[in-house]
C-alpha cells in the first residue's frame, strides 16, 4: 500500500463521517499520513452524506479524493452518484439492499449485508458505521485489529463500547 483514497457515502445519520475519522485515526496508529474530509451543510443533516479519507506512506498534498481506490455506498442515491466511472482497481463495496443495474460491469465489486448486520446481528442500527469499518479493514487490511479497535473506542459514545466492538467484529466477519 502506498496511497489509498477511500470514500464512504450513504445517508446522513449513518455515522459514515465518524467512520472515516476512525479509519484516519487507525491510519495514524499505523504510522501513515492521513487526510480526512467530509461533506458539510444541510445535506449532512439527513440527506446524502459523504466522508473521505486518504491514507498514505508519503506526505499528502491534495486532500480530496480524486482517484478513489475504495468506495462504499450504503444508499441507492450514493451508489448512483459515486460508484460509476471508477478506475478498474478501485474496490466497490455496497450494501445488499442496493439495486445494481444489470449492465454495471465494475469487476472489483462486493455486496454485503451491512445494514442488516447492524440491525439484526448487533441489534442497533446506529452501529452501521462500525460494522462498515470492520468490513473495510478486513478488505483493505490496512490496520491491525488492535489499532482499529483502539480507534473505534476513541470515537464512540461512553457506554456503547461493548456494542461497538461487537459491531466491529461482525463487520470483519462479513468480509472474511
Amino acid at each position, binding site marked *: 500500500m502506498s496511497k489509498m483514497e477511500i470514500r464512504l457515502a450513504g445517508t446522513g445519520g449513518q455515522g459514515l463521517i465518524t467512520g472515516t*475519522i476512525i479509519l*484516519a*485515526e487507525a491510519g*495514524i496508529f499505523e*504510522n501513515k*499520513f*492521513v*487526510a*480526512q*474530509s*467530509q461533506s*458539510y*451543510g444541510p445535506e449532512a443533516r439527513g440527506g446524502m452524506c459523504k466522508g473521505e479519507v486518504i491514507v498514505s506512506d508519503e*506526505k*499528502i*498534498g*491534495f*486532500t*480530496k479524493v*480524486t482517484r478513489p481506490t475504495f468506495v462504499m455506498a450504503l444508499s441507492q442515491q450514493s451508489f448512483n452518484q459515486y460508484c460509476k466511472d471508477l478506475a478498474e482497481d478501485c474496490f466497490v463495496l455496497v450494501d445488499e439492499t442496493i439495486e445494481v443495474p444489470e449492465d454495471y460491469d465494475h469487476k472489483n465489486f462486493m455486496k454485503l449485508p451491512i445494514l442488516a448486520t447492524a440491525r439484526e446481528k448487533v441489534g442497533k442500527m446506529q452501529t452501521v458505521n462500525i460494522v462498515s469499518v470492520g468490513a473495510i479493514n478486513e478488505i483493505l487490511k490496512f490496520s491491525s485489529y488492535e489499532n482499529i479497535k483502539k480507534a473505534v473506542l476513541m470515537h464512540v459514545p461512553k457506554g456503547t463500547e461493548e456494542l461497538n466492538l461487537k459491531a466491529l467484529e461482525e463487520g470483519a466477519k462479513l468480509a472474511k
Partner: protein
Amino acid sequence: MKNVKLMQGNQACVEGALAAGCRFYAGYPITPSTEIAEGCAARLPQVGGRFIQMEDEIASCAAAIGASAAGVKAMTATSGPGFSLKQENLGYACLTEIPFVLVDVQRAGPSTGLPTSPSQGDVMQARWGTHGDHPVIALSPSTVEECYTLCVRAFNLSEKYRTPVIFLMDEIVGHLRESIQIPEEGSLEIVNRTMPKDLNAPAYECEPGSLIPSFAPFGHGQRYNVTGLIHAKDGFPTNSTEIAHNQVKRLMAKIDENLDDILSWEEKDTEDADVLLVCYGGTARSAYSAMEDLQKEGIKVGLFRPITIWPFPAKRLEELSRKVKKVVVAEHNNGQILLEVERVVKNNCKIDFIGKVNGTVITPDEIANVVKEG
C-alpha cells in the same frame, strides 16, 4: 512519532491559541468557523480562560478587544459575512494598538454565498476591509499542523507589534482532519506584551528606537485613555495635523520597517524551476500534488507559498520571477493575490492564472494543465 494526533484544522487553531496563551474568546456561530467557537467553549474554562457567545459579530470583535485591553490574550473567529461585520472594530484595534487575533475561515461569497464551500475571496478584504489607512498582518495556513503553529505566531506577532493579526484560514484546511505533532510545552516561542517601565509616562510613548509603545493593561495603575480618534502620545484626541500624520505613518512603519521579522513564505524546488507556482492556504495542497505529477514528467516546477499574505513577501517573489519562464497563480477567488503578483512581477515573466469561484477545489490536474500550456 510522539504526541501525534488526528485533528481538524479548526480544532488545531484552538489548541494553538491556547498554547499561545489565549485565555479569552468571543464569537458568534458561523460556518465554516463554528468548530473554533465550540472548541474554545469547551477548552478555555479548562485552562482558566473564558468564553462568551456574543449577540453578533460586531460585539464579538469588540469583546475580544476589550478583554485584550484588560490584559488577557484574546481571539475571535468568523467567516466571510462575519468578517465584513468585524471590520468596524478591527480598525479600532489598529488605531488603538490593541492586539488580538481575528480568525477568518474563508467561504465562498459574496454575501451569504456558498456557506460551506471553500474560497479565498477575503484576501483583499483582509488588507483593506476596514476604512482608512491601517497596518495589517495576515497569515494563511496550508496544513492542520500550521493551523496550530501559525496561530501561535499570529498571537506572537500581534503582541509584539501591538496590532490585530488576521488568521486567514479557508474551508479546505479548517475542515480538514490530518495528523499533527503537538509541539512539546516550552518548545514554542511565546511573546507577551511588555509593561511600561514608568506608569506615569504617556501611554503611547515609544522607547527611543522603537515604533511600538509598551502596554499596561487596564487595572495596573496607568489610568490612560484609549480612543478610536486620532490621538496624541497621551492617548487623548487631537486635531493636530502633525500628530495625525505621525500617528498613521508610525502605525504603517511598525510593520513596513520590520518586514525581515514578519515575512514568512515557503519555497519548494525553486532553485532551477522553469515555472513557479504561487499558491497559499488550502490551495497550496493542490499545488504540492500538481508539482509531484509534473516533476514525474520532467517539468521543472517550483512553488512559492506566501505564509504572510499581508505584508506580502514581494522582494523574494520579484527575485524568483527573474529566473523563471512563467509564474502560475492559483487561488480560490477571481484574482486577488494575482493583483499583488502582477504588481511585483511586472514584465519579468509571463503570468498565468487559475481562479475558481464556484465553491469547488482547484485540482492538481487543473494546475498541471495550465503549467503545461507553456
